[in-house]
């Protein structure tokens, strides 16, 4: 008998969700005995809440946010990893005006609020002697690329390296990226799956992880067939040049072993947040990062 699982993405379907879509399209979920229903929210903070409330079984979230959520008392655990590296970057236009982070002193940085930007940006800028209070932080919502391209801000934080860089390139702007993990921020998993700490079913998650791993393997082995199948999921919105480029840049980012656990990576990042007073209690990774096969 198949089990029904509801999976809520962090946002609308995009190439970062490749393994999920491929697992669904190629029937890996069914082979694992799962019937997975995919939902797409517009606000990335909703899915985790709904998992915590028991309304959906699994959700795509981010490692920093999981730590913040757990610290705030939400009953969540990490189930597996989707993308095992950071994707966030600090982007500037490659026009010679901002060649180093030090040049951003007194400038405007557009962000899409995710909760940990203060910690990350102050660390990155601090390495080059710029204080957080020396820059002007502006929430630009989802208009990251266009605010940068139109010159309304000098840098953007919150864009993904596989996505925004390509987007800007397509509009004819060359972007320069500063990677947080190269500027003093602990490395972390950008996209992870979370489940409810009290009600999660170990077998289901293991089956799910297996399907995701199969899909990732397929994608890595057959990138262009996988692209065709990915696009077939929602041709109305997925089939375009931007997604194609983003797809290619995502290939190397998918976690090859979704279930693999690295407590230290979680504890280091939690410390980082705690030190910057983003969270008031320090959760222990072993309490919210259970191991699955």
């Amino acid at each position, binding site marked *: 008998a198949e089990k029904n699982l509801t999976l809520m993405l962090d946002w*609308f379907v995009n190439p970062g969700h490749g393994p999920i879509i491929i697992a669904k399209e190629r029937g890996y979920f069914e082979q694992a005995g799962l019937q997975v229903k995919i*939902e*797409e*929210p*517009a*606000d990335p903070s*909703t899915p985790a*809440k*709904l998992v915590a*409330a028991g*309304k959906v079984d699994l959700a795509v979230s981010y490692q920093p946010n999981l730590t913040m959520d757990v610290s705030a008392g939400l009953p969540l655990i990490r189930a597996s990893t989707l993308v095992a590296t950071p994707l966030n970057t600090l982007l500037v236009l490659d026009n010679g005006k901002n060649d180093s982070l030090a040049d951003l002193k007194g400038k405007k940085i557009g962000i899409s609020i995710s909760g940990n930007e203060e910690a990350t940006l102050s660390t990155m800028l601090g390495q080059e002697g710029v204080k957080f209070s020396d820059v002007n932080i502006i929430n630009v919502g*989802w*208009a990251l*690329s*266009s605010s940068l*391209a*139109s010159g309304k801000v000098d840098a953007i934080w919150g864009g993904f390296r596989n996505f925004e860089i390509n*987007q800007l390139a*397509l*509009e004819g702007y060359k972007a320069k990226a500063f990677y947080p993990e190269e500027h003093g921020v602990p490395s972390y998993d950008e996209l992870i799956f979370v489940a409810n700490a009290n009600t999660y079913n170990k077998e289901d998650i293991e089956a799910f992880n297996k399907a995701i791993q199969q899909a990732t393997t397929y994608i890595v082995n057959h990138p262009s067939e996988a692209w065709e199948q990915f696009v077939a999921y929602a041709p*109305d*919105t997925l089939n*375009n040049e*931007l*997604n194609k480029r983003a797809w290619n840049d995502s290939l190397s980012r998918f976690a090859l072993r979704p279930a693999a656990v690295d407590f230290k990576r979680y504890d280091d990042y939690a410390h980082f947040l705690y030190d910057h007073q983003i969270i008031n209690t320090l959760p222990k990774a072993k309490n919210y990062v259970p191991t699955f096969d």
Partner: protein
Amino acid sequence: MAQYHSVSTRLSKKERITYSVLRLMISAAVILGLWQLVVVAFQMPSFILPSPMAVLDRLGTRYDVLLKHTWVTAQEILLGLGLGLTMGLMFALMMLMFQPLKRWLLPILIASQAIPVFAIAPVMMLWLGYGIASKVVIAAIIIFFPVTTCCYDGLRNTPIGYLDLAKTMGASKWQLLRHIQFPAALPTLASGIRVAVVIAPIGAVVGEWVGSSEGLGYLMLQANARMIIDEMFAALFILAVLSITLYFTTDIVLKKAIPWENK
């Protein structure tokens, strides 16, 4: 001192319709022209404001996708209107029947208007899920305030003479409501419906933004995030056309249904 109709009302009906269609088309042309002018004059990059040509082009090439999503949104709007009107009418009836209730409910009404639907959307999602129900409810909530106030004002302000007359004819409370108060409230109700029809689409689109996998709002967000701004504007254009069509259709229907509206 009677106010006499202007010459235009003495035109035949057919002529009048032709004229207003013509006028609508010319207005549209003027708007498009201005838009193109802005694009050219300010050298707008296409990710800020695409040219109308690009948008029309998009409408042509993607009409099948756009139509599919339009149909979804249209359903949400219509169901939302149905629900909102029913709720508003019932609420107004309650306030009418239990007079003292009114003073307590008014602040709730205003608060319901003051809290952005966006903010309570997660709660709504939790209760209603990601299907059509949540969009319908959001559209209904957004029109609830104007509909309720209009219904209530209409029902409450029945000319006292009508009530006296019907009472001396032996009408019961229920007959008064059905034969006198309700029909007498229709003109005021109609203005509530006109407002509702203009804002209900906003509710549906906001609902789609909060979470959905189809509809014009979904399409717009998608297109926006992908910087395919001409597609976003195409969806926006359809939405505007949808709203305006809905408004004028409703207007015509209401005028036919309530011919005594403007004395």
